[in-house]
């Protein structure tokens, strides 16, 4: 039977009565207590270690070694920074960086812009607002591969339903080969991304709009502010921290675009839609150059790490407020 005093003593880390402090039993208890949080965390840490840390470290080590899978079943010798140098001397690598940056910029601007507009519209109560909000999650719920194949089929200039619809509304676009011209192929990728993300962002921003105090807006209205002025000087500043988080989140996802490239364009026409992630995949799983693919992947990891850090800082600031 443990007394209340003993329990308190154990809880405070002090030696129980009758035993000198610093004795073996007391030290053991303290150590057990210190280890307890780690024991609780151990399963999760083990999972993270196995599924994230190990692959990352393995890829980092491999990025400094020569390893082509069709030459050897085991990694070859260390080559230092050679594979990183190779990346920065390869014009197709730079092409993929530029494609990725362009895609990220356009898709973030359009997704957040359209998402914000949708959120502002849906923030007004109407008869179908609830149903519309529920439907908004659907595009994001569609599997990326399914989304890709569907868009490829629908944008086909020969028999695609979207192509026919666009041709009917804009006859001057009848000759556009959506997936055959570099600019339009990139725009189709952007469209698929915006189609999936803008509604989700709208839902996120609707949560933010709900937290904007109604009386502040009301006061601005009483003071004679127009709808645009109320948005510009009241709503937008209050939404800005959340918008920053949304921008970081969307940028991270845009930077690692892969599925739609594989399923819609295959990187073409030419190399016009080869993103960095697709480039790394091709090097590793088509060309079987695992060492070089690891180096390219780590370049992407660093870029994503910078963005993720920005995202976390923005999140912390938001929580602090």
């Amino acid at each position, binding site marked *: 039977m443990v007394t209340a005093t003993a329990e308190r003593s154990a809880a405070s880390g002090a030696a129980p009565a009758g035993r000198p402090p610093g004795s073996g039993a007391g030290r053991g208890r303290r150590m057990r207590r210190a280890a307890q949080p780690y024991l609780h965390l151990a399963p999760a840490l083990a999972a993270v270690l196995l599924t994230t840390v190990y692959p990352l*470290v393995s890829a980092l080590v491999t990025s400094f070694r020569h390893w082509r*899978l069709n030459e050897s079943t085991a990694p070859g010798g260390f080559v230092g920074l050679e594979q990183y140098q190779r990346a920065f001397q390869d014009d197709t690598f730079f092409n993929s960086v530029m494609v990725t940056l362009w895609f990220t910029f356009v898709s973030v601007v359009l997704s957040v812009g359209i998402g914000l507009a949708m959120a502002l519209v849906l923030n007004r109560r109407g008869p179908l607002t609830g149903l519309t909000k529920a439907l908004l999650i659907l595009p994001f719920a569609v599997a990326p591969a399914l989304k890709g194949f569907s868009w490829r089929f629908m944008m086909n200039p020969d028999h695609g339903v979207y192509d026919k619809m666009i041709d009917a509304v804009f006859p001057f676009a009848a000759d556009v080969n959506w997936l*055959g011209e570099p600019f339009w192929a990139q725009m189709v990728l952007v469209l698929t991304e915006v189609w999936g993300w803008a509604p989700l962002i709208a839902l996120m921003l609707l949560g933010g709009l709900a937290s904007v105090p109604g009386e502040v807006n009301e006061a601005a209205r009483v003071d004679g502010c127009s709808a645009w002025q109320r948005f510009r000087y009241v709503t937008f500043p209050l939404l800005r921290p959340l918008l920053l988080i949304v921008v970081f989140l969307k940028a991270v996802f845009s930077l690692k675009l892969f599925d739609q490239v594989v399923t819609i364009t295959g990187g*073409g026409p*030419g190399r016009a839609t080869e993103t960095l992630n697709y480039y790394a995949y091709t090097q590793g799983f088509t060309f079987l150059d695992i060492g070089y693919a690891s180096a390219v992947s780590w370049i992407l990891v660093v870029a994503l790490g910078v963005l993720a850090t920005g995202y976390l800082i923005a999140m912390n600031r938001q929580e602090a407020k």
Partner: protein
Amino acid sequence: MKRGFLRRRASRPAAAALAAVLLAAGCGTDAERHELADVVRAGPVDDLGLRTGKPYDGTKIRLLICCNTAAQFLAMQDRTGTEFTKRTGIEVEWANIPYESFLQKIVAESALGTGTYDLVAWTDAFGASVRLGVQPLDGVMERAGMTLEDYPPPFREAATAGDPGTTYGLPVRGYAYSLYYRQDVYEKFGFEPPETWNEYLGQLDELKESSPRHPIAGQYGRGSGQNLFTWLSMLWSNGGELFDEDGNVAFTSPQGVQATEKYIEMIRKGYSPPASANWTETEATQSMEQGHADTVLTWTWQYDDFTNPEKVKPEVAENIRAAQLPGWEGKERASYGMTWLMGVLRSSEKQGAAWEYLKWVSNAKTERAIALDKSKPEQATGITVHTSNMLDPEVNEVNGGIPKLQYEALRTGRVIPTSINWPQIQDTIEVAINKMAHGADVRSELRSAAARIKKIEETGG
């Protein structure tokens, strides 16, 4: 103070874990290797060369393969249970991987040797990458009295996987590139199957003026190198080469430029629809199947689909005809002949049973029985890889003469040079062709591709 203590405490296991991760990340070993002849049990065999007495009874093996919707593969898989397993007691599981990811999967499996699979199938161009992980077959073939004599030259070459003198795989499926046309259209226009590319383009020009369909459904898009198939046939039959005898890039030769210009002309002059700049084999053949095109250049195996009324429009099934690819004036035709080979994985622990299956599935008698069986439309196929079957009158009679056509095409057919750099080379040419289809200058794109391939060959990347 206490936080510092905890941090020190925490840092020790973290450092140990990191060290373990680093150690594990940096390790890798080669698997132990045995010769196939050492693990295969010798003994009396039946009429198909299979061991009698079921020495591998109850063994279950796995085959890594693609495209089990292909009629021939469907038929093989179906007969595996009813015939092979019945004879040997060996169960075979076909692990089907979609073509888009198949080549990566087989090379990775061959190289890493996970032991998950016992047999692997591959297409010729990837022989050099795959042979690292498959067993040479010469010893067991010699013991079984088997040779490659009954296969056409391109398939025999592919069986060596780029290592002349050694056989790594046996052909189980193979086909040649050919021209498909609508007989009703050709009759209406008074055309005969063209002998030369110039004659063919003349026909396409006439069709463009008067036919409501696309004169040809081309495929210039990026997708596993499929836009190379026609180009390679045009290049080779014009006397051009991918590489010369010294291994230097040779497709920038006058013959190479001429062949490429003629190939690109088909889309630039509007014979092939503009959308085909982004089409792969799937879209091109679908266009033909849906009755949107008058001709298409594709593999002989497509005859199985084009004549299947459940897959294509009735007017297509009734009127589809095949002919050899055109050639160049005064030059011998040279079609690209692609073959699927099957080999025994080194990492397999059931290599004896795997060899039994390989003998059965590659046997000319098994192939002939499948080619003659038309009881199930989805399994009906005229694709054969043995010369004896390609020339068999009975096989030809029930398959619209496709086996004989294939034999003729393969007599002078070619396969892609086997190189471990082929995936990069293929990607480079594929991108160049795709760019040309979108309007890029043919000569400068060929030169640019040649320079890139030279760099790939020099540096391996």
